[in-house]
């Protein structure tokens, strides 16, 4: 949350409590809504595209894997089928070209076996069997001459189907072998002969091992009962039963997706080898074949999260930046509106006041002269002059007239549309003059005055009289606000925009927030009836504005008050001759 503390918008803690704020909008809500909308419109389509892409890529890769497995299975099946067919064809060739009787000679049979071994390979022995199942001639490493196959399954099948390929079996020397057999055409008397040969399965193993499989994959041949015909990597040795389900017969190469004994998904390509009891199986672990997919998937997920984070940061930043700008602009506008309101109120009050002053001055003069004459008459007649009550009454009238006159004259001064007379001035000089007007008052009241105006402050082109009046009013107020031992601090600094900022600060009793709003209004005074007229600060305000300046006040009860005036170094107006001023 620390990051939020630093990046949250300016208006986060602003509640729409002020009247003006209700006219504008709820920034927090707009900010949240805009962030939400921006996130939805950017993340939603991206998520959808991501999902589609995900699905397509997954399908493409898994289809590609299936196809590849199917292709390898199919090719291998062809090779194996060809291998078996070739050897059967060799036997057929012999059967077609010779009479069975010609093979009763052991020498001839051995000669044939030698040719087969050299021409094709894989042949171990060769035997001739008559219709009674008796092996009447045998060439090979074993002593099988005279062995009867009459009751053996394969012999019966071969007699029926002309040619035969057997399952793999362990021979006398415990080495896996298989039998192929070919029958001569049946004679007219129903007699027939069978040529039988044992094949070494090493060739099978060679074909399968040439597939160049990865460590997790496996390829083997099993029979229809699921007994392994070749050794396998993961399913046991020859004649072990595989743990995979035996697929339904299909003339084409097929794919099935199953689980191995550990529950891992595996992809099995299988093909039934024609005219044989064999099924070729190519087993691949899904995990391995989908390796490409997994890395792509991880990349996609990382990309998605990365982009989401970037979008989130950008959206947050943009929304905050824009809403901050809007908020700041609105605040500026509000302040300007408030200032305009108060200054236009001041102007209208000022106009009214001067209008009233004009009209009141004449009757005041009449009262003054009549009372004056009355006093003159009484003064000249001895009997009245001695009457203290009478004199007191008339003096009271004259005093009130004088006081009213003072107010109306100040009011007139307040509204007087004089043109400032501009001359080059040293602020320090002007301020020193003003301090000298005060005479010894600060000294008597034990108030120390500290003035800090740099010597190198540029000359200011402004109206001397107005500046004097402004400073005098503010300094007078400051002194009035302080008790014995107070400190009056006057500083001036050059600020941006070719303006000077003058601050007059006291450590007096301060102004309460509710009074602070009204201090520039005419007739607002806290000094009671015997104090000021309540016009000092409004006149000051009017003068500062007339000089294209600005005046602000900061105050805290019990701490003090600071007035800050900013003025342009150059007043935009004609520079008049000083002598024309009154």
């Amino acid at each position: 949350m620390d990051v939020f503390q630093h990046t949250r918008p300016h208006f986060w803690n602003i509640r729409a409590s002020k009247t003006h704020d209700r006219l504008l909008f709820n920034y927090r809500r707009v900010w949240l809504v805009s962030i939400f909308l921006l996130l939805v419109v950017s993340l939603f389509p991206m998520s959808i595209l991501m999902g589609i892409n995900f699905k397509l890529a997954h399908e493409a890769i898994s289809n590609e894997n299936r196809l590849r497995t199917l292709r390898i299975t199919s090719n291998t099946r062809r090779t194996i089928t060809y291998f078996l067919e070739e050897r059967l064809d060799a036997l057929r060739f012999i059967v077609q070209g010779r009479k069975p009787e010609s093979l009763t000679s052991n020498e001839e049979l051995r000669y044939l076996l030698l040719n087969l071994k050299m021409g094709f390979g894989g042949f171990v022995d060769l035997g001739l069997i008559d219709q009674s199942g008796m092996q009447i001639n045998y060439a090979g490493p074993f002593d099988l001459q005279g062995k009867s196959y009459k009751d053996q399954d394969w012999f019966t099948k071969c007699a029926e189907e002309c040619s035969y390929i057997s399952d793999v079996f362990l021979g006398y020397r415990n080495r896996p072998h298989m039998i192929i057999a070919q029958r001569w055409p049946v004679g007219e008397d129903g007699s027939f002969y069978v040529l039988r040969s044992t094949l070494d399965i090493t060739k099978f193993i060679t074909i399968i091992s040439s597939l160049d499989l990865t460590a997790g994959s496996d390829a083997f041949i099993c029979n229809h009962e699921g007994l392994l015909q070749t050794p396998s990597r993961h399913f046991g040795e020859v004649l072990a039963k595989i743990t995979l389900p035996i697929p339904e017969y299909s003339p084409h190469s097929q794919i099935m997706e199953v689980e191995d004994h550990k529950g891992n998904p595996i992809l099995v390509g299988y093909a039934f080898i024609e005219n044989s009891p064999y099924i070729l199986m190519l087993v691949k672990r899904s995990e391995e074949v989908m390796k490409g997919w997994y890395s792509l998937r991880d990349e996609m997920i990382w990309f998605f999260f990365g982009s989401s984070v970037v979008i989130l940061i950008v959206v947050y930043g943009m929304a905050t930046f824009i809403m901050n700008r809007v908020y700041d602009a609105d605040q500026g506008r509000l302040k300007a509106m408030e200032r305009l309101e108060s200054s236009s109120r001041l102007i209208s009050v000022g106009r009214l006041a001067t209008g009233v002053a004009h009209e009141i001055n004449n009757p005041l003069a009449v009262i003054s002269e009549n009372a004056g004459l009355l006093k003159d008459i009484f003064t000249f007649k001895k009997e009245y002059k001695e009457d203290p009550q009478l004199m007191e009454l008339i003096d009271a009238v004259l005093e009130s007239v004088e006081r009213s006159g003072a107010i109306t004259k100040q009011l007139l001064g307040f509204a007087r549309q004089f043109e400032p007379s501009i001359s080059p001035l040293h602020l320090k000089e002007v301020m020193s003059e003003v301090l000298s007007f005060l005479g010894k008052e600060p000294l008597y009241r034990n108030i120390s005055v500290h003035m800090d105006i740099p010597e190198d402050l540029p000359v200011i082109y402004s109206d001397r009289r107005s500046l004097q009046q402004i400073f005098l009013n503010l300094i007078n107020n400051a002194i009035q606000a302080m008790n014995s031992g107070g400190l009056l601090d006057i500083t001036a600094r050059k600020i941006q925009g070719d303006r000077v900022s003058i601050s007059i600060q006291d450590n007096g009793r301060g102004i309460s927030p509710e009074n602070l709003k009204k201090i520039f209004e005419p007739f607002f005074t806290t000094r009671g009836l015997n104090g000021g007229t309540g016009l000092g600060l409004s006149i000051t305000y009017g003068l500062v504005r007339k000089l294209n300046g600005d005046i602000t006040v900061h105050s805290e009860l019990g701490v003090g008050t600071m007035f800050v005036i900013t003025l342009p170094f150059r007043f935009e107006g004609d520079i008049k001759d000083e002598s024309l001023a009154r």
Partner: protein
Amino acid sequence: MRVLLVDDEEKFVSRLAERLEIRGFESDWATTSAEAFSKAAAAKYDVAVLDVKMPHMSGLDLKKKLQEMSPDMKFIFVTGHGSEEDYCAGSREGFCYIIKPFKIETLVEKINQAMNV
């Protein structure tokens, strides 16, 4: 020393004249410019105290006419208005410019100053 007071407010101007009389000035007063002309034609005045704003003819115009009649006459303007224009014109045209209400001593002082007494 003769003083002519012109102001449209009779209660003001008559009392003022009386008070000046008490203070040793020979004072006449008028409430219209026509009256002022006839007074000025009949006698010679050293100082004229004129209201700036009067009906029919302003104090400034009256001053021009009176000056034609007696060029040595000194002028003091009084006004209840006190606008900037008034002030500038009044202090330019006359010896001085006083805003109503004023103390009789102020007027006496200004008259004396005008006559270099």
